[in-house]
C-alpha cells in the first residue's frame, strides 16, 4: 500500500504553507487559530476518509455534500420538533446510509459510471432538502446539540475528538482487519479477490454505504456548529473532500492511497483556507485556489507516473 514513498508529497506542501502563513499571516500561528483549523477540518475529514476508499476503488461520490445537507436538515427538524438527540442522529445516519447504499447499488451492481450517477443522487438529495425546508433554514433546535458541540472532552473541542475517533476507526479497519485488505485489493486486484471467494460486490457496495453513513454522521458536527439546519449548507464540500484525497496522494488510476495521506490533505486544505482567510483573501478565491490545487496535484501525480514508467512505452 505504501511502497515507494513513506511521506506523501502533500506533507512538504503543508510544511511550506505553515511556514509561509506563520511569517506573513498575522495571528496565524496562535493556539486558538490552530484549534480553529482543526475544528473546521473535522467535518471535512469525516467525508474525506470514506472518499479515500471510494477513490482507491476507482470510484467517486459527488453526492456527499448534498447528502450531508439533507441529513443536517433532517437532524435539525427532528430536534426542533422535540425529539431526542439520539433519535435525531439515528435518523440523519439512516438518511445518509440509504443514499450510500443507493449509490453503491447503482455503481457496483448496475455498473453505472460513478461520476454521473452520484451527480444524479446529488440532485435528488438537494431537491429533497429544499422540498423539506422550502429553502429556509431550520432554527430553534434546542440546547442539547449546541451543548454537546461546545463540550471539550479532555480539554479538546468535541469536533476534533470526533474526527480523531473516526480516523482511528478507519485506520484500524484498514490496517488490522481482513475487510481492510479486501478494500485495498479491490482497486487494482479485483480478479484475485473474486478467485479467492470474497463477496467482492458486497465489499464494494459497503464502501459507498460507509460514504453515505459518514455524510449522515457528519451532520452532527455541521448542525452543531451552525445551531441550525440549512438545505444547502454543505453544497460543494464533496469537492474539498476529493481535493484532500487527491492532494494526499491517492490516485484515481492506480488504486493506491493512504488514510495518513488524506489526513495531511485535509490539514493542507484547512491550513490553506485559514491562512488565506487570515491574510484577508476572500472566501470565493479560497474555493478557486483549491480548484487550482487539485489540478496541480493531478498534474504532478501524472508527471511522476510518467517518470516512473519505463522509457518507450508512451501512451
Amino acid at each position: 500500500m505504501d511502497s515507494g514513498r513513506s511521506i506523501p508529497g502533500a506533507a512538504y506542501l503543508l510544511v511550506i504553507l505553515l511556514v509561509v502563513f506563520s511569517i506573513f499571516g498575522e495571528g496565524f500561528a496562535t493556539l486558538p487559530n490552530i484549534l480553529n483549523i482543526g475544528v473546521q477540518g473535522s467535518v471535512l475529514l469525516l467525508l474525506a476518509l470514506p472518499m479515500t476508499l471510494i477513490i482507491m476503488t476507482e470510484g467517486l461520490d459527488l453526492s456527499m455534500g448534498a447528502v450531508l445537507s439533507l441529513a443536517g436538515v433532517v437532524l435539525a427538524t427532528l430536534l426542533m420538533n422535540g425529539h431526542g438527540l439520539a433519535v435525531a442522529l439515528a435518523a440523519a445516519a439512516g438518511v445518509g446510509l440509504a443514499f450510500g447504499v443507493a449509490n453503491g447499488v447503482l455503481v457496483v451492481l448496475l455498473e453505472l459510471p460513478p461520476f454521473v450517477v452520484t451527480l444524479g443522487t446529488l440532485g435528488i438529495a438537494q431537491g429533497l432538502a429544499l422540498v423539506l425546508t422550502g429553502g429556509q433554514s431550520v432554527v430553534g433546535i434546542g440546547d442539547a446539540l449546541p451543548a454537546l458541540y461546545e463540550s471539550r472532552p479532555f480539554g479538546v473541542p468535541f469536533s476534533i475528538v470526533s474526527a480523531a475517533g473516526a480516523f482511528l476507526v478507519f485506520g484500524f479497519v484498514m490496517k488490522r482487519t481482513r475487510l481492510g485488505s479486501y478494500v485495498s485489493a479491490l482497486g487494482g486486484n479485483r480478479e484475485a479477490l473474486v478467485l479467492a471467494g470474497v463477496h467482492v460486490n458486497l465489499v464494494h457496495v459497503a464502501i459507498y454505504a460507509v460514504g453515505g453513513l459518514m455524510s449522515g454522521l457528519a451532520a452532527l458536527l455541521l448542525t452543531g456548529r451552525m445551531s441550525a439546519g440549512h438545505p444547502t449548507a454543505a453544497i460543494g464540500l464533496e469537492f474539498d473532500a476529493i481535493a484532500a484525497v487527491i492532494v494526499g496522494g491517492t490516485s484515481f488510476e492506480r488504486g493506491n492511497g493512504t488514510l495518513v495521506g488524506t489526513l495531511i490533505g485535509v490539514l493542507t486544505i484547512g491550513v490553506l483556507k485559514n491562512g488565506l482567510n487570515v491574510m484577508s483573501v476572500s472566501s470565493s478565491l479560497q474555493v478557486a485556489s483549491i480548484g487550482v490545487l487539485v489540478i496541480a496535484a493531478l498534474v504532478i501525480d501524472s508527471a511522476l507516473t510518467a517518470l516512473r514508467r519505463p522509457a518507450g512505452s508512451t501512451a
Partner: protein
Amino acid sequence: MKTVAYRLLAVALIATGLSLTTEAFFTLPNILNILRQASLTFLIASGLTLTILTAGLDLSVGANVGLSACLAATVMKSSGSIALGAATGLAFGALVGIVNGMMVTALKLPPFIATYGMLWTLTGVTYWFMGGDTIHGFSPGFRALGSGYWLGVPVPIYVMAAFLAAGGIFTRYTTFGHEVYAIGANREAARLSGIPVRARLNLVYTLSGAMAGLAAIVYLARLNSAEADIGEALTLPAIAAVLIGGTSLFGGVGSLMGTLVGALTLTLVVNGMNLRAIDANWQPLVTGAIVILAVWIDVVTRQRAEATV
C-alpha cells in the same frame, strides 16, 4: 436515427399527456416558451455532447456560462458596446475550453476530474469577481437576442436552429465529425488509423467552451441581469439533456439532434411541473432521477449490444 425517433415519440407522449391534463399547455405562448427554454439548454448541451461523443466529459459548462456571462455583462456595461461585451464572453468561454483541452490532452488528466476542478475554480473566481453585485438593465437591442421575436418566433430558436444545422453537418458530413465518433468508439484504433487524436480533442473541448460562451450571451440577454450564481443550476440539466438524447457516456454513439430532443423532453417535464404548480424545489430531484435513469438505459443498451456481437 431510430433511437432519436423513439425519443421524439416519448416527447409527443409527454406533450399529449400535458395537453390533456392542463389547459394552459397547448397554447402558442406556452409552446414558444418551451422551445425558447429548450434552445438555451441545447446551446449549453451541444458542445458537451461533442466531448461525450469522444468518451470525455465537460463538467465545467455551467460554471463557464456563469463567469462568461458575468464578464460579458461587465464589459458591456463599462464600454457601452454590445459587440465588445459579447466578444468577451465568447472569447472567455473558448479560452476555458482551450485550457480544458490542454488538461485532457497535454497533461493526460481524466476529463471528469479535470473539468470538475475547473468547475470550482471558475465558480470561486465568479463569486470573487462579482463580489455580491448584480449587473442588470441592458439595451433593448441586446435583450432581443434572448427575449425578442422575429416573424412571431423567439430569437433563441433561430440561434438554436442555426447551430443545430451547423453542428449536424459538422458531425455527420465532415471528416472532423467522423473522427470525433471514431475517437469515442475506440481511441487507440483512431490513433493507429492516423487521426490526430490530440488536435481533435483540443478542438472538441474548445468548441464546448465556446458554446458555453455563446449560451452565456443568449442567457444574459434573456435574463437581463447577471449574478454570480447564474450558472449554478445549469450543469445537471445539460448533462441530463445529452443522456436523455441517447448519447452514450462511453463515447462514439449519439447525435446533436438527440440532444435537442433531450433538451425538449427535460423542458417539457419542468414546464409540466410549473403548469401544475409543483414547487420548483422538486426540480433538482426530478432532474437527478432522470439522469440516473438515462445512464441506466445507456448501460443496459450497451450491455445488450455487446451480448449480441
